[in-house]
């Protein structure tokens, strides 16, 4: 026999015994090891027995022996790989725990060596980083040596792997695991520029993480309720989120904004920031930055640039934090992390609650900037530059319980933005951050910025911002009407609101009619339902400017009608006669009746003064009994024998989408104008030549009265859709 043969014989005997008499097996191996201490297989067999029996201490000792005596053996490396994998994994099964326990029994020096050697053998950057991280966590003294290089490796890996999102496995490891070790290592000397670089990397990651959209694979809810603007609640079915390359557990980042604040505090302390007392809230930070900004002009040289970087870094974080909070309240579906239950989006719009007042609408919506709206474009533009401050935002407190927080966030975000734009140098530095983070591609930020610009009354700028917003959401073909469609509608309504605020009534109406075209009127509830939303809000006091409306048909439809009313009201009550505009106003005043009663009476006064009134759509769209009564009275002698020409034209009848209405109109048609051509008919009726016209009017009135029960919103919706062209054309 040879030595090799002896060893094989001894190991074989041990193996034969291991199940029946493990002690004897070990006795064989102990003997074998004293005979052939340099034989690897004997020791490996000993280790295997202990490992399989999960005896931590003895397996650890044998592993230690093998690691020291047979460092080149592949089997040893296989074991070390398995153990380090268990250390990295979050698996809780018994064997993984045994392996971790086994590692713990090794002397620290050996653990350190083992991890370092295992790291060397790793070719995958991520694994290598995780391994090194194990080392750094266990042996804080190694952070000084390996910390920064590990950080840089991870940041380089991002570039090498061409990852465009900051929310990637490398960045996660860097920001959440490596960075805290680096900046918390007391012996670590870090240049300020590096600290800023790392701070910005961390901020970019956390912001990207917290504002990440719902994952593509999260289940889409198939059907949506019969709401015109689709509620995106269905998109938020699952909260599972996995960063590519990481496990679900390690993809989870808890309290990202708080973590960011932690890092900010440490970086601040390391950079010896001015007046840094480690305040713990974003709002506090903004206050401090405002104070610091006051001293900026008195500073110079290095102190100035230091201070500037501090202000920009801190304020930028406050800006994004509060803008995020605002947008997550207004557009919760944008973010996966946000978990409000099925909350729909909200839209910031001009407040039109005073539209029913007799006064001119300019009072409410245009008092700041509209006086010179007829000036040339160049002049006008300078006017729009003027910021509007201290505007009120109305919001239904019942529908948004957290309204106060939301408005606070909006204000904080605006103030941060203003601060960042209060000095040219700050703005430059801020823009540099924005450019490196590609913030122009952040939809949520664009939403905030648009609202901010609207709030500031910079409507011209707001329009371009809204067009920009529209470019974000090119709804994929066939997906129109889902969340993309919703965004589209949202932008349209805001466009309309802005155009209206700019006095561009025709454009405003155009957009509003486009919106209404996408709405489904609420047919389930009676016509008075529309009161629910506006009633509570119209009582909210006067002198208010903006309003946040939930993006639902129920809330949007009234707004659209109010906006059209506001546009036509201006034309209807001018010195010059405009029956068409007046007619539209009367139709629109039906909504929210009797809110518009005063205005209606004003219209009636005007008709009386004119002595005649011509509005061919009257019988198509006016179903309000009070109005019908008033008009019936106008024709009487007591009413002033006003000449009314209110019969519908044929073209309208043909267009009518409703079979019921079509039938009624058809009857009118047959009754009043058998075989008469459209052009002649008009003439004939107005002249009252045809006998029985009077009788026909009476009949039409009676039929109209029977329509009073019809859903008003359906009627008005039809009005907007059918009369779209006329409506737009009747505005300058």
């Amino acid at each position, binding site marked *: *026999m*040879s*030595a090799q043969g*002896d060893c094989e*014989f001894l190991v074989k*005997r041990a193996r034969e015994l291991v*199940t*029946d*008499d*493990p*002690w*004897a097996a*070990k*006795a*064989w191996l*102990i*003997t074998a090891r*004293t*005979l*052939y*201490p*340099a034989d690897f297989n004997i020791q490996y067999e000993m280790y295997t027995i202990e490992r399989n*029996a999960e*005896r931590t*201490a*003895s397996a650890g*000792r044998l592993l*230690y*022996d093998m690691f*020291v*005596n047979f*460092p080149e053996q592949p089997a040893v490396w296989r074991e070390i790989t398995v153990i380090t994998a268990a250390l990295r994994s979050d698996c809780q099964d018994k064997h993984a725990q045994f392996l971790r326990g086994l590692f713990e029994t090794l*002397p620290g*020096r050996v653990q350190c060596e083992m991890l370092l050697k295992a790291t060397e053998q790793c070719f995958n950057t991520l694994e290598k980083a995780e391994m090194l991280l194990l080392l750094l966590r266990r042996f804080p003294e190694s952070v000084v040596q390996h910390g920064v290089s590990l950080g840089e490796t991870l940041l380089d890996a991002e570039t090498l792997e061409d990852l465009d999102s900051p929310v990637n496995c490398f960045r996660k490891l860097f920001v959440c695991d490596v960075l805290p070790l680096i900046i918390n290592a007391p012996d670590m000397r870090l240049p300020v520029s590096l600290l800023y670089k790392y701070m910005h990397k961390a901020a970019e990651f956390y912001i990207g993480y917290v504002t990440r959209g719902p994952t593509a694979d999260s289940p889409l809810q198939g059907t949506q309720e019969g709401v015109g603007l689709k509620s995106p609640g269905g998109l938020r079915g699952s909260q599972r989120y996995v960063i590519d390359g990481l496990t679900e557990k390690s993809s989870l980042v808890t309290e990202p904004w708080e973590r960011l604040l932690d890092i900010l505090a440490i970086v601040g302390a390391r950079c010896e920031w001015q007046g840094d007392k480690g305040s713990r809230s974003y709002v506090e930070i903004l206050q401090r930055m405002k104070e610091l900004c006051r001293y900026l002009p008195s500073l110079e040289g290095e102190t100035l640039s230091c201070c500037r970087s501090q202000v920009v870094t801190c304020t930028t974080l406050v800006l994004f934090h509060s803008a995020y909070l605002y947008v997550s309240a207004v557009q919760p579906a944008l973010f996966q992390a946000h978990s409000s239950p099925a909350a729909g989006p909200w839209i910031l719009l001009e407040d039109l609650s005073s539209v029913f007042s007799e006064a001119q609408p300019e009072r409410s919506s245009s008092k700041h900037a509209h006086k010179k709206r007829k000036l040339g474009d160049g002049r006008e533009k300078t006017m729009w530059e003027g910021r509007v401050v201290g505007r009120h935002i109305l919001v239904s407190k019942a529908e948004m319980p957290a309204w106060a927080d939301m408005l606070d966030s909006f204000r904080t975000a605006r103030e941060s933005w203003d601060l960042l734009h209060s000095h040219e140098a700050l703005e430059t530095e801020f823009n540099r951050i924005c450019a490196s983070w590609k913030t122009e591609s952040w939809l949520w930020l664009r939403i905030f910025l648009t609202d901010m610009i609207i709030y500031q009354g910079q409507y011209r700028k707001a329009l371009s911002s809204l067009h920009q917003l529209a470019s974000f959401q090119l709804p994929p073909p066939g997906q129109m009407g889902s969340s993309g469609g919703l965004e589209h509608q949202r932008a349209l309504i805001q466009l309309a609101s802005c155009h209206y605020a700019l006095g561009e009534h025709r454009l405003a109406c155009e957009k509003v009619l486009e919106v209404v075209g996408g709405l489904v009127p609420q047919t389930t509830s009676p016509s008075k339902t529309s009161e629910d939303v506006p009633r509570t809000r119209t009582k909210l006091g006067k002198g208010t400017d903006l309003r946040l409306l939930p993006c639902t048909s129920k809330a949007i439809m009234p707004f659209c009608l109010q906006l059209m009313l506001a546009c036509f009201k201006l034309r209807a009550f001018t010195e010059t006669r405009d029956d068409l505009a007046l007619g539209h106003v009367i139709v629109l005043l039906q909504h929210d009746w009797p809110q518009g009663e005063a205005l209606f009476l004003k219209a009636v006064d005007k008709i009386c003064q004119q002595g005649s009134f011509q509005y061919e759509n009257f019988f198509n769209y006016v179903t309000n009994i009070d109005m019908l009564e008033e008009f019936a009275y106008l024709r009487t002698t007591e009413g002033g024998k006003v000449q009314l020409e209110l019969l519908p034209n044929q073209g309208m009848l043909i267009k009518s989408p409703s079979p019921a209405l079509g039938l009624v109109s058809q009857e009118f048609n047959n009754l009043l104008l058998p075989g008469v051509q459209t052009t002649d008919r008009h003439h004939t009726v107005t002249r009252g030549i045809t006998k029985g016209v009077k009788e026909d009017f009476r009949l039409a009135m009676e039929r109209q009265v029977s329509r009073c029960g019809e859903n008003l919103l359906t009627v008005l919706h039809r009005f907007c859709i059918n009369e779209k062209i006329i409506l737009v054309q009747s505005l300058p």
Partner: protein
Amino acid sequence: MTDIRRSLLRRDALSAAKEVLYHLDIHFSNQLQNTAAPVVDNGSVELVEEFVFNLPKDRSMQRKKMTSLQELQLLEITCSYFQEQGKDSLRQIIFAALFSPQSNMADDRRMAMLGKLVSMAVAVCRVPVLECAASWLQRSPASHCMRLAKVLVDDYCNSAPSPACALRDIVTVSPRFCCQFITAVTAVYDLSSDDLIPSSDLLEMVVTWVHDNPRLTLLTFLSAPMPSSRPPGALESTPLLGLVRWCVKSPLAYKRHRKPLLAPCPGAALALGPAEGGQAPGSLYSMLHLSVLQILVSLRADLTEHHLYGRVGVLPLEHVAKLVGELAVLVDQLNPGDAAAESELSLNRLAQALQVAMAAGALLCSREDLRCLCSRLPYNSLLQLVKSGPFLQPPHPEFQQESYPPIHVSTARS
């Protein structure tokens, strides 16, 4: 001295015995103030023999013997004395004065009382008495030690219907005593006859002790490693050879005794725990054998540390030779066809113990000596391998066998 004797003679047996204890205490206290290592003088021994063990100096003076109750009282008093005397050196010398064998007529009584005292100390956990007994076991002739061990085994391992915990548990309070006790008990139960096979309770207790705390077996040796420090005829310095004897001879001895040894049950490894009730002796011996090998392995570091490597044979060669001889007889006694498996197991264990002991420096002999030693034994492949030794290999340059970091030294457990 005669004054004391005269005054003692007037007392009754119990109070005289008490007075002797009192006298010894004062006498040796004084001695200890003058010399660090006082010796037990004849006068003291005589007093003890006359008044404690009741052996009258002259036949004419027939004294009343102590009643059983008085005897018990005396035991209690003695036990309490050792418990309460805080000075270890004083306890030791008085214990020696009372119980050191004198090779005279009094020895029987001496041993009887010692047996009762130690048994009582075990029962009520009197650690100082056990510690004194441990020293006594180190100093006294092996035959006396074996007698004491036998008493304890009879009291605790054979008689009680269920194994008494008292003895088992003293391992936690007086490991030194347990070490000596194991040495003595393996000397008694040497499996030379069927009567001298350890009872299963005793076996299980010893195996549990050794398995749970292998270092236990080296306590006496490490406290006085040089053979010269032991009086001639005393017990061996470790129980290791006795334990090796148990492991090596048990398969054949049980076979001869027709006692079922039961093969180790599969999966027993999983249930391996302290004091696993009702394990088959086969498993226990297998566990014990492994423990012994592990102790031998760890011994190498101890020997090196104490600069004794190659100088002290922990397993003396002549004792090993005796064991080999006993094994050869056993093999001869049994029909080889009948006991092939047992014989194989015994020889494997012997070969393993020899090899590991040699490698650890616990057995000082050459391969040549070994071949001569084992020439009478039947062929066994492992033994053959051990006799011829490993094939020489070039030394492993980086090899660092046994250089464990301190945290590992104490744990040589399975």
